[in-house]
């Protein structure tokens, strides 16, 4: 039995002061991932700071077409929000593709971003894992790879980022507001929130202890943008992605792509913005072969493992299908 202190934060300053005082304190919002990890012995905070009383739970649609999503907005009401569904359908679709109804009704926006990998070796404390126990090695690289990453990996870690929502957010150029300990507010692209594992896979984000995500902001989508999220998985529901893609495209009437944004999930150590593929396809009227080639170029620097090399072709097929449907105007 481990001693655990619990504190319900009264305000943001209270939460951050406590976090600064306790090196192994953790913020608790929905708890859908953290509580599981505590039961498994993977997360071992000595203090939980409950931040659910701090507000930050509103969806604010602004006159300029942008929207600010409070860090504590739950996944279910965000996916159900009429204006999110109408104007940012890729986000609603990604949310609805994730977890289960019960989990979505509790899980928070910021918690979704900061959820940990579901790499089975990370979650099993009897196995070496550089992310859980730095320097202990990686059981995954010689293990089962089907769920694991091939982009952004290193010889120390191949854990995939599990979020569906974050894949849509990188395609939407979403911005995260971070309240640093000390009161400064930094804003960064969701893409910039994450670090690649390199030689320190235990450091997953650019956040420091005590930093608090307060909101996620979506800029107004480009005029004429069509967007969709598609997730391919082993089970029809309640499973993590083998591959997933968030596509946002603006095209001329003749199908020539003027603006393209691709988010890849299930294949990378962080929500992956596929800028190489985007650049190769922008300005063209791509054939399926051209899309396949562009996705191939995105994976040029990948480190495929025997158990996940199939994802390159699966991703190419998925992007081809979704982009084709969007360009034909019948994607949903």
């Amino acid at each position, binding site marked *: 039995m481990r001693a655990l202190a619990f504190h319900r934060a009264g305000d943001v300053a209270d939460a951050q002061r406590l976090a600064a005082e306790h090196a192994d304190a953790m913020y608790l919002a929905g708890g859908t991932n953290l509580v599981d990890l505590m039961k498994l012995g993977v997360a071992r905070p000595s203090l939980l700071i409950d931040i659910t009383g701090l507000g930050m739970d509103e969806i604010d649609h602004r006159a300029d077409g942008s929207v600010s999503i409070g860090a504590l907005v739950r996944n279910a009401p965000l996916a159900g929000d009429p204006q999110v569904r109408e104007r940012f359908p890729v986000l609603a679709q990604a949310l609805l593709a994730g977890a289960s*109804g019960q989990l979505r009704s509790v899980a928070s926006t910021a918690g979704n971003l900061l959820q940990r990998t579901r790499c089975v070796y990370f979650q099993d404390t009897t196995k070496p894992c550089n992310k859980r126990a730095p320097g202990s090695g990686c059981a995954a690289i010689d293990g089962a790879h089907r769920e694991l990453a091939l982009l952004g990996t290193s010889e120390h870690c191949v854990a995939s980022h599990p979020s569906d929502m974050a894949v849509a957010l990188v395609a939407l150029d979403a911005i995260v507001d971070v309240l640093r300990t000390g009161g400064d507010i930094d804003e960064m692209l969701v893409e910039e929130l994450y670090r690649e594992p390199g030689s320190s896979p235990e450091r997953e984000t650019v956040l420091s202890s005590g930093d608090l995500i307060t909101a996620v902001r979506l800029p107004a989508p480009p005029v004429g943008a069509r967007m969709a999220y598609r997730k391919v998985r082993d089970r029809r529901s309640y499973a993590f992605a083998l591959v997933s893609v968030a596509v946002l495209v603006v095209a001329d009437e003749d199908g020539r792509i003027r603006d393209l944004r691709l988010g890849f999930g299930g294949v990378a150590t962080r929500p992956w913005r596929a800028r190489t593929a985007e650049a190769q396809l922008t300005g063209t009227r791509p054939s399926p072969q051209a899309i396949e080639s562009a996705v191939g170029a995105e994976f040029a620097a990948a480190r495929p493992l025997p158990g996940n090399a199939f994802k390159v072709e699966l991703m190419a097929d998925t992007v081809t299908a979704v982009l084709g449907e969007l360009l034909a105007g019948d994607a949903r």
Partner: protein
Amino acid sequence: MLAEARRGWPSHVSPDVGRGIIGPAELDPTEVAERMSGNLCRCGAYRGIVDAVLEAAEAPARDPFPELAGS
């Protein structure tokens, strides 16, 4: 789950997330199975449960404790 559908919230299998914003979401066996998926236990989307959920969705809201009405 029924309250979410009445609110018009879509699910992963809804044909168009942007549709149905005005009225309640339409439920059929596929919708119910998806919405019940992962709900405490895998049997939550079994056929008998799906049928029962659809039946409950059709029925007028019933007071399970009529003897307490008005108290």
